[in-house]
């Protein structure tokens, strides 16, 4: 449904490489996530695919249409929700929706079924101007406007950034139901915990894709063993662990530290415990843990320098 071949995008006369030779494809009806921090190149990729930016190199197609040649066709077929709220602030909820429906030669009535579930939540405020909406309601209106012409592919650029954990969960449930209706969805997010909600993900950093696969396979591909640890003195635990020369990596992860070792011979656990007891740590909890996507991202970042 979406195919990128060696797409490159630079700014500042080629001095800033935003997207660096990126290739991937998204299948029909797939929920595909671009996972990476600010500045990774997520928005540039979206803008190339939605024909708002010309790539410097490579080619890409959306639903069989070339992003450079068939840009008009793509624009009429896809839905795009930019990261920045881009509806008309001085139009009401209903006026905004009507406006976008009209632009795409359709009516709210015609595709109401598709947006119904989301729209009923903001319908009580349909006469309110968009600028007066709360963040969560704006987000729902923007999604309705991106869907009103029944797009074949939906591009959502960081729809959950700055949104609290509960609303984020609700938003992902909406996406799942849209996917069930056969819409292909490309979504980007800086929240690593959302990665597991996608069918497949690309982990992206400084314009380069570090890994593409299902979330499960990315976790499976994590090489080495990851452990978690905590003690009664968390504030000095990290420093004390770094004095153990067998330590490969060690970083905070919620209430625990996550760590991995260079060499896991039969003594290493005993050695580790001895060091920590010497330093006065008590109530030590130490066990193997399953890596999360965030652990994988951190590992990939360190190995790519």
């Amino acid at each position, binding site marked *: 449904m979406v195919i990128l071949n060696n797409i490159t995008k630079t700014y500042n006369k080629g001095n800033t490489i935003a997207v660096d030779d990126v290739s991937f494809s998204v299948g029909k009806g797939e929920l595909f996530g671009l996972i990476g*921090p*600010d500045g990774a190149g997520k928005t540039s990729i979206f803008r190339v695919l939605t024909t708002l930016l010309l790539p410097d190199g490579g080619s890409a197609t959306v639903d069989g249409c070339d992003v450079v040649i068939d840009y008009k066709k793509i624009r009429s077929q896809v839905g795009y929700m930019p990261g920045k709220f881009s509806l008309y602030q001085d139009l009401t909820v209903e006026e905004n929706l009507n406006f976008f429906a009209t632009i795409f030669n359709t009516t709210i009535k015609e595709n109401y079924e598709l947006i119904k579930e989301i729209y009923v939540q903001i319908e009580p405020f349909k006469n309110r101007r968009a600028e007066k909406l709360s963040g969560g309601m704006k987000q729902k209106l923007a999604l309705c406007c991106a869907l009103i012409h029944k797009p074949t592919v939906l591009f959502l650029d960081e729809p959950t950034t700055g949104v*609290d954990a*509960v609303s984020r969960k609700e938003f992902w449930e909406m996406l799942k139901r849209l996917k069930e209706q056969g819409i292909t969805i490309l979504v980007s997010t*800086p929240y690593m915990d959302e990665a597991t909600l996608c069918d497949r993900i690309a982990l992206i950093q400084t314009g380069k894709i570090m890994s593409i696969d299902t979330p499960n396979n990315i976790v499976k591909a994590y090489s080495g063993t990851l452990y978690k640890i905590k003690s009664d003195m968390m504030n000095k635990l990290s420093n004390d662990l770094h004095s153990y020369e067998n330590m490969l990596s060690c*970083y*905070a992860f*919620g*209430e625990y530290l996550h760590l991995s070792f260079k060499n896991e011979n039969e003594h290493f656990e005993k050695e580790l415990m001895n060091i920590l007891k010497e330093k006065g740590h008590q109530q030590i909890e130490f066990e193997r843990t399953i890596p999360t996507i965030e652990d994988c*991202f951190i590992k990939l970042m360190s190995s790519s320098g």
Partner: protein
Amino acid sequence: MKESVIKTEKLTKRFGDFVAVNEISFEVFKGEVFGFLGANGAGKTTAMRMLCGLSVPSSGIATVAGFDVFKQTENIKRNIGYMSQKFSLYEDLTVLENIRFFGGIYGLSDKQLKEKSSELVLTLGLQNETKKLVGALPLGWKQKLAFSVAIIHQPKIVFLDEPTGGVDPVTRRQFWDLIYEAANSGITIFVTTHYMDEAEYCNRVSMMVDGSIKALDSPSNLKKQFSATSMDEVFFELARGAKRGE
């Protein structure tokens, strides 16, 4: 006796009929890392604005760094630092210009400014970048610089409004190292975040729902209280009942 840096009693803010912040009472102590969490629309921003001396409360009592939020807002502003992901530094000023600008705003003398800028540049390892525009720095450096600038005047307390949004996982952790360093030097940290793993890094956490503080304790006590295994679950338990929502 712990020294309290923020103290509020039934602090309230109304906009017409709407009670944005409803009688919140809490205390934050010197050198503490205090997480101020809540759903969107719960009233966090309004509460923070009152504590920073930017919005006059409708009723209640509060002191910040020993100053009254009704009468001594200018003293408050001089004794606090502020940083957010959305507003931190001027991208079109150089590193040095930003340090001088914010240092000047916070009332540092020329002599202090000189000392502080060179000290700051050295600790951050930015010696070769002082004349570069901040907009050209990698995000991680920008964040560290923004935080260092927010505490350049050694404030009693620094307010961090979602300081790590959109930052990569490695930089996010380095940023928390800086937070701990500042806390160890006696600066109180007041921080909001949507990353629930970061709630675990706070000494104590408050959870705001529909304008009220519904829970306040250390992460481990909160988890016990709600029989939860993570702060994520605690948050869901509390925020799911939110009426206001967004």
